[in-house]
């Protein structure tokens, strides 16, 4: 959940990148890291790795700067596919303020997308087990693959997004669409803090 420290005028929120295995979740974090200036990667230090092995990027803090007098930060988490995944997934989602759902655009992966979405709904509850209303933005990944392999956005929406959450097609490898989706989910989650609206913003 969003954390506010009135004394230090700091605001921190959590965005979780969720989706089926191999949909590009960690690639999305790499894409964001590579396109944000180093001084905005709040507190981020490169992870160590064995020679020749790319480090797994699963957490990326972003410093949004000072906004209306508040120092704002967003922690991005990519839910791991393996290794204690069930417990980790549930714990991270319990504190999520917004979700970027990475759905694989390949037609052959539709079933995996549907299963991951069901898993998200199952896990997206608060610490007392009550369902939480958390803003969700869809990222349809791998849009740079040949068209004959892909499902169109309309077909994807029909299966995954009947609630008409915001949708962005992306190629995380080329960096298209990812920052736009992140922008959208951050705006939604901040708007989701009802008091902003109550005060007429």
């Amino acid at each position, binding site marked *: 959940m969003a954390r506010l420290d009135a004394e230090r005028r700091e605001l921190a929120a959590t965005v979780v990148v969720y989706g089926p295995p191999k949909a590009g979740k960690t690639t999305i974090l790499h894409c964001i890291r590579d396109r944000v200036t180093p001084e905005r990667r709040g*507190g981020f230090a490169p992870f160590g790795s064995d020679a020749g092995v790319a480090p797994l990027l699963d957490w990326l803090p972003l410093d949004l*700067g000072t906004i209306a007098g508040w120092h704002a930060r967003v922690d991005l988490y990519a839910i791991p596919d393996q290794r204690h995944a069930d417990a980790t997934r549930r714990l991270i989602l319990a504190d999520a303020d917004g979700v970027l759902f990475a759905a694989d655009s390949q037609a052959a992966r539709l079933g995996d997308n549907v299963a991951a979405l069901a898993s998200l709904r199952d896990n997206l509850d608060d610490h007392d087990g009550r369902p939480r209303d958390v803003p969700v933005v869809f990222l349809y990944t791998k849009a740079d693959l040949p068209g004959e392999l892909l499902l169109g956005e309309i077909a994807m929406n029909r299966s995954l997004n009947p609630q008409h959450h915001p949708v962005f097609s992306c190629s995380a490898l080329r960096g298209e669409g990812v920052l736009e989706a992140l*922008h959208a989910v951050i705006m939604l989650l901040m708007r989701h803090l009802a*008091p902003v609206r109550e005060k007429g913003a």
Partner: protein
Amino acid sequence: MRVLEPWVAAPLTELLGESGARLALIMTSAGQVVAQHGFTRSLDVMSAAALGAGILATTGELANVVGAPSGFGAVVHQGGQQGVWLAGFDTPRGRWIGLVVFGPESSIGLVRLFFARFAEQVARAAPPLVPVREVLAEGFERELDQSLRALFGAG
């Protein structure tokens, strides 16, 4: 050391320095990391946080089953080269958990002693929480949008 809540840094530094602990992980009872020292990979941090929170929750339930509703206080695993101290403590932000790994240069007694002091210091250092509705200004959304456009290169 990496801390998400800056006011935890000083008490944690003292805990590490005085007890001689090798690793420390402070988390919420849900497993969200608040601070850590000594871990080199974020996945290890997340795994340790999830496992630590799970162990303490399980131990609490076990305490209920065997008729010790006030719980066991702390869980200690003493290995040949390293020991693990795992305990919950109350803060103004809710119940948190500390996981401390120590070697033969320290001891359970030292860790216990300075962990108790750490918990007291954290409880005193926590700044008050202010409800969101009282503090976010009217122009917050507009400024946020502008900031994100600048940050992501669209402005």
